[in-house]
């Protein structure tokens, strides 16, 4: 059965107060078109899980996020994600820091259907500082309280291998997981090139999974080589074809990052007025993603197209500037 819907229809399934994980990381394979549609539809009080780089930061700027539990709020070489930085420094967003392995292991627990996994991930650090534990504040704003654990962590002595103090890391539960990928079958089977980031964990455990894909292909085609597939159709609820759906970020084997656009974003969004103007141009000034692509223009996008066999635009072929 085909699960192909429009971007607008898919994002209508995201509810205010949902816990949300975006696939991809930093500016790689981020569901930017989906994030822009969430802003366009005016979702509120979302709890952003994982990381807050390009796609997450757009949601923060758009006023959609009440709390963020994650490990990385930066756009890499383009600076700390400007909207969450500004909101953090004005004390107007709840942040609950966790570690990168915490996130991996929390999502592994979700995927495996177990309540917690033990590791030494954040032993000795301020991630475990009770004074910085904002989980109770997140619980005040989250729509579905069952998505959050009762405690951030529990310490205990390793009873099996004498590893000393270990941290019990609760499963990270998700209402929605939105991934942008290179290819999806019309029934939802997903193929990813480059880093899988957390997509293969989040999509297997989230209650609702939305896939936006550069290309939607016949399901029979993607099933010719199932070992190459990363998310089964059985875990996917909706599929949307969104070419250039991660612009201004990159998608391995498809396109490289749009550096001037990323720099412009970093510069514009140091103030809320700046973000609002940026959003007026690129989100509210566009009826949808096709309109956004028309505004960018074909020649701009063509310069970003990945060069085989590299999966990006190598500097010897001009590079991205």
């Amino acid at each position, binding site marked *: 059965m085909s699960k192909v819907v429009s971007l607008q229809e898919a994002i209508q399934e995201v509810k205010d107060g949902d816990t949300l994980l975006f696939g991809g990381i930093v500016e790689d394979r981020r569901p930017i078109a989906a994030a822009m549609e969430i802003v366009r539809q005016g979702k509120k009080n979302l709890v952003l899980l994982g990381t807050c780089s390009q796609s997450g930061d757009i949601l923060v700027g758009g006023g959609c996020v009440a709390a963020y539990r994650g490990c990385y709020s*930066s756009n890499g070489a383009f600076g700390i994600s400007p909207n969450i930085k500004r909101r953090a420094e004005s004390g107007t967003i709840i942040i609950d820091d966790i570690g990168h392995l915490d996130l991996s292991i929390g999502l592994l627990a979700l995927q495996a259907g177990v309540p917690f996994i033990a590791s030494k991930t954040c032993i000795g*650090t301020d991630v475990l500082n009770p004074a910085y534990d904002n989980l109770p504040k997140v619980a005040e704003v989250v729509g579905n309280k069952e998505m959050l654990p009762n405690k951030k962590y529990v310490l205990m002595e390793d009873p099996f291998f004498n590893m000393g*103090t270990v941290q019990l890391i609760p499963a990270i539960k998700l209402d929605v997981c939105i991934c942008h990928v290179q290819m999806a079958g019309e029934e939802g089977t997903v193929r990813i090139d*480059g880093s*899988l980031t957390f997509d293969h964990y989040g999509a297997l455990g989230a209650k609702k999974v939305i896939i936006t894909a550069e290309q939607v292909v016949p399901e029979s085609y993607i099933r010719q080589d199932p070992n190459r597939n990363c998310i089964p159709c059985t875990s996917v609820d909706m599929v949307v074809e969104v070419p250039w759906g991660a612009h201004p970020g990159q998608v391995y084997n498809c396109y490289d990052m749009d550096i001037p656009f990323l720099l412009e974003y970093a510069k514009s969004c140091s103030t809320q007025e700046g973000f609002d103007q940026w959003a007026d141009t690129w989100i509210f000034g566009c009826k949808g993603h096709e309109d956004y692509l028309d505004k960018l223009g074909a020649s701009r996008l063509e310069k970003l197209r990945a060069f085989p066999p590299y999966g990006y635009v190598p*500097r010897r072929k001009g590079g991205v500037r």
Partner: protein
Amino acid sequence: MTQQYAKIGEYTPVEAMVVYAARFLANFDGKKGLIGTGLPLVATQLAKMLYSPNMVVFVETGQADANPEELAISIMDSRLTYGSSWQMGDPEGLYPLSRNEIDFGFIGGAQIDKYGNVNSTFIGGDYNKPLKRLAGTAGAVDIGVFAKTTVILMAHQKRRVCEFVDYLTTPGWMVKKWPEGTLVRREELGMQGGPSCFISSMGICKFNDDDKIMYLDRYFPGITPEDVKANTGFDIDVSRATEADPILVDEIRILREEIDPLNIYKMR
């Protein structure tokens, strides 16, 4: 490369820091490193070219034995994928740490204290309303907990090199035992590893064997031990320091022309 030395002023302090870091990585030729985002990626690219061609690079976004042909722009850049042995996701990128496979971690940060603890979360003010909010933990916490040793790279400024970090992101030698937050030696919590070296824009700092407090081991040409003292937020011991070998013209040329020709990392 020719052995011609670059004159002071012909390179920036950040370029010096990256070149000395690349030289230091010669210690890890043939070893497995988990490399963090920012300038560590640049120094690693230079080191693979000049000083440690057999260093095995792991990245937290899931590449095993990454061999990027050109400098990555971020920690998940397509440039890291192409040419790697294995490309999975972030969990598989991090499990080599918790599996105890990683010989050294290499990270940047915003603040380092005299015990080698690193902060990449926030500076000043309060956790819930910081003066300056930073990127957060990412791999920095995991590298500090699990790698057999860590190497830290950061500009040397009084506010950055301090008595104790505002937020302990990457555990150094003296860490916090919860729930009280008592400062204890990392071994007491069953943690192996610990920082071996802090390479700054002024010199190379190491840690005393007994009390694990940072001291100056080398200062860069054009920098005096007094300069380092004046730019350090605690009373750093400089009595054992000697001057580092000068930078080579070719090291700077390769850094500028071959590693970062577009000046993406704003080193100059």
